[in-house]
């Protein structure tokens, strides 16, 4: 298949199979996203981050855990240590590269747990209505009433410090907004004609929720997740900074800032470099989220 | 008063440029001009293009859109703003989307009036009452205190018309002003509009899909198909229209007076989209 025929195949208004229909829709979404320069910038940063995490052993010039006290607090650009070294003489660049694995790990886990929990609670609550709605939403309100980091701190304090527990704690604090969004979407979708139509075919609530409401809630949740990613990374870093997330010597970015804090006046780069990394990745997620909103928002598409 | 030459409206898509309006020319005097066509015929785009209200990435091309001395195509945005609403007004299909939901109707009319006339609030309030009187709204004081969701669709549309007429524009463009309304209210709103237009000597462009409505309330009708004008005729003579598209549209309407098993279906001829626009 030449390039032109492939393009036509992907852009056709007359798909010939289920797979073809899905591919054309996906491709058109991709084209719309590609037109958004900032979103593409965000996406490229995230791709670089992912590659960095995968290829960490190859990319890192040093072992991130090897200490060299004679070589501590080397400045930026010193020979052999491009981004300098920290208070224990570890190469900051290598720690940064290995740290991307932890960041991605946290992000991926939270991005799986929180929205799915929120989606379940929100759609069931919105579709069922009545007392189910009241009970589920009051529970949501209870979680929403606490400041996020404080609640996460409380959870970690109960569960014990560590990266897995940090993920669980962040997820527990992150799901209520998703439940709220999913519920609000469900309320509008529930009263639409296409839901009435499928009810008139005898479809049961479970089928309506999973096959008809979920696909429509999904896009706004994906957008929200990407926009929240920055917050999640910051929360994880915050926990790390407070010593309740990743434990030393693991090169988690928040923990790295925390360690560098003591030397911030004399050796500013030790805290600043991981801070910049957090900033860049958060920004990348926000840019991508903004672009995805334009592409995925069901209200602005297909018109 | 308004004369349009070779107007195009184009939208870039994944598959190249889509021409929504394809090189139409017409002129408008102090008359009621109807633009009729089906959805996608470009009739609404024509109305919006006159006021340069096409949203990007869509764009407009024309030899000229002359309004008095000005060529609307070349005017800068700030001059355009002074024409929009002030000298050419537009009434949209659904009043719900055109009125601000969190302001009372009175506040909106008074604000609109004071934007165009430097008068104290009291005078503007009196004017607002007069305006609503002009569109045959009876309990004006109550309506002025009401929020847009508290009035019916017909009332909302009359309020919109009142607001659009405040600056005494030379031309009113009405895009499907009554299609969200019930039949009985439709007639009422149209005759109010009609009366105001004739009394003030304005030009009216009535954009509609409803052939009968247009033939009742207009002097001249442009029939659009696939972005072009296929026929221009006197509104009264619409039923003697010669173009097969116009005839087909008229014939496909069910009639209360005759009993038929099948309605005649419009057979679209690709050739209709080909020739250049008819000019008027």
């Amino acid at each position, binding site marked *: 298949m030449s390039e032109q025929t492939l393009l036509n195949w992907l852009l056709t*208004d*007359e*798909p*010939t*199979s*289920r797979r*073809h*229909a899905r591919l054309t*829709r996906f491709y058109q979404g991709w084209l719309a996203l590609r037109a958004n320069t900032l979103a593409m910038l965000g996406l490229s940063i995230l791709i670089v981050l992912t590659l960095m995490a995968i290829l960490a052993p190859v990319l890192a010039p040093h072992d991130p855990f090897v200490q060299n006290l004679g070589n501590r607090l080397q400045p930026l650009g010193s020979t052999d240590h491009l981004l300098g070294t920290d208070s224990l003489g570890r190469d900051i660049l290598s720690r940064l590269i290995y740290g991307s694995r932890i960041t991605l790990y946290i992000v991926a886990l939270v991005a799986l747990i929180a929205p799915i929990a929120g989606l379940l609670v929100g759609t069931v609550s919105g579709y069922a209505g009545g007392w189910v709605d009241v009970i589920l939403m009051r529970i949501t309100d209870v979680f929403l009433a606490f400041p996020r980091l404080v609640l996460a701190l409380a959870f970690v304090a109960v569960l014990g410090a560590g990266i897995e527990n940090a993920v669980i704690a962040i997820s527990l604090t992150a799901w209520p907004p998703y439940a709220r969004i999913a519920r609000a979407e469900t309320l509008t979708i529930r009263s*639409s*004609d*296409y839901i*009435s*139509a*499928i*009810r*008139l*075919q*005898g*479809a049961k609530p479970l089928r309506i929720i999973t*096959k*008809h409401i979920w*696909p*429509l809630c999904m896009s706004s949740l994906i957008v929200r997740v990407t926009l929240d990613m920055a917050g999640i990374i910051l929360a994880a870093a915050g926990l790390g900074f407070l010593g309740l997330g990743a434990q030393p010597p693991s090169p988690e970015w928040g923990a790295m800032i925390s360690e560098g804090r003591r030397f911030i006046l004399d050796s500013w780069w030790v805290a600043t470099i991981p801070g910049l990394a957090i900033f860049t990745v958060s920004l990348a997620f926000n840019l991508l989220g903004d672009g995805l909103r334009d592409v995925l928002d*069901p209200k602005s*598409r*297909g*018109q | 008063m308004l004369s349009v030459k070779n107007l195009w409206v184009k939208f870039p898509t994944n598959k190249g440029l889509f021409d929504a309006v394809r090189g139409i020319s017409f002129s408008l005097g102090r008359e009621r001009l109807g633009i009729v066509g*089906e*959805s996608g015929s470009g009739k609404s785009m024509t109305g919006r293009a006159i006021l340069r209200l096409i949203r990007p990435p869509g764009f407009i091309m024309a030899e000229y859109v002359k309004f008095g001395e000005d060529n609307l195509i070349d005017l800068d945005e700030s001059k355009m703003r002074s024409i929009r609403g002030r000298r050419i007004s537009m009434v949209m299909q659904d009043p719900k989307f055109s009125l601000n939901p969190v302001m009372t109707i009175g506040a909106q009319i008074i604000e609109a009036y004071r934007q165009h006339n430097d008068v104290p609030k009291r005078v503007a309030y009196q004017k607002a009452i007069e305006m609503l009187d002009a569109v045959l709204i009876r309990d004006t004081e109550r309506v002025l205190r009401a929020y847009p969701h508290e009035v019916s*669709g017909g009332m909302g549309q009359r309020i919109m018309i009142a607001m659009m007429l405040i600056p005494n524009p030379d031309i009113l463009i009405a895009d499907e002003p009554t299609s969200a309304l*019930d*039949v*009985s209210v439709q*007639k009422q709103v149209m005759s109010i509009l009609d009366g105001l237009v004739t009394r003030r000597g304005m030009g009216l462009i009535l954009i509609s*899909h409803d*052939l*009968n409505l247009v033939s*009742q309330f207009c002097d001249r009708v442009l029939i659009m198909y696939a972005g072009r004008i296929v026929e221009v005729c006197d509104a009264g003579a619409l039923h003697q229209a010669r173009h097969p598209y116009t005839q*087909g*549209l008229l014939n*496909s*309407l*069910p*009639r*209360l*007076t005759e*009993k*038929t*098993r*099948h*309605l*005649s*279906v*419009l057979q679209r001829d690709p050739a209709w989209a080909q020739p250049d626009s008819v000019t008027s």
Partner: protein
Amino acid sequence: MLNVTKLNVWFGHGRDRVDAVKSVDLTVEKGESFGLVGESGSGKSTILRAITGLAPHWSGAMVIDGSKIVGTSRDRVFFRKVQMVFQDPYASLHPRHTVDQVLSETLYLHGITDIESNILRLLDNVGLTARFRFRYPHQLSGGQRQRVAIARALAGRPDMLLLDEPTSALDVSVQAEILNLLTDLRNERHLTYIMVSHNLAVVAHMCDRVAVMRHGEIVELIKVDQLRLGHAHHPYVKELLESTYG
């Protein structure tokens, strides 16, 4: 086929209660095409929604084919007997489902096994070719969408179609096509129609008898032949006739 007595439908309660339908009686014979005409808010669509269980509160009695309807839940037997076509084809199809998904799910829900050939047959019935099978709603015109919606309603081979303003969102030329399709389908399958519309001419074209509604009540029940001759009694119906004649 359908017998409705003393039907009341309301929304909200207490001070906010709105009575949408007030004490309506109507009988629709098997094979008949019955019209409900009225302006927006007259309660005509609400009657259809009450029949199908989409309106939450109602009182009175409704009997379909000898079996009494209770509450708002309907069983599978009901859905195989009665189906509905909605007003706005832009809102009645799931925006993320292809025509194929819509029809195959409907067929599956009605327990029909041979889905593949049935989809093609249904598309053919409503005048669409197999080319349309994998399209999303945004790749279809208004008329094509309404055809898909009609195909969906026909999938379970119902006896009765409730048509809620099926053409009011469409251009007149497309309206003619859809109305002709509905006429043909009714002849082929001996369907019973209840058609709701604000357009007297459309209802008169499609129906044998018409009930004119206003403020939730039926003000006049009239045969279409009488209507054509202009033999209406109620002043409101006369007014409607007048505005339709133009």
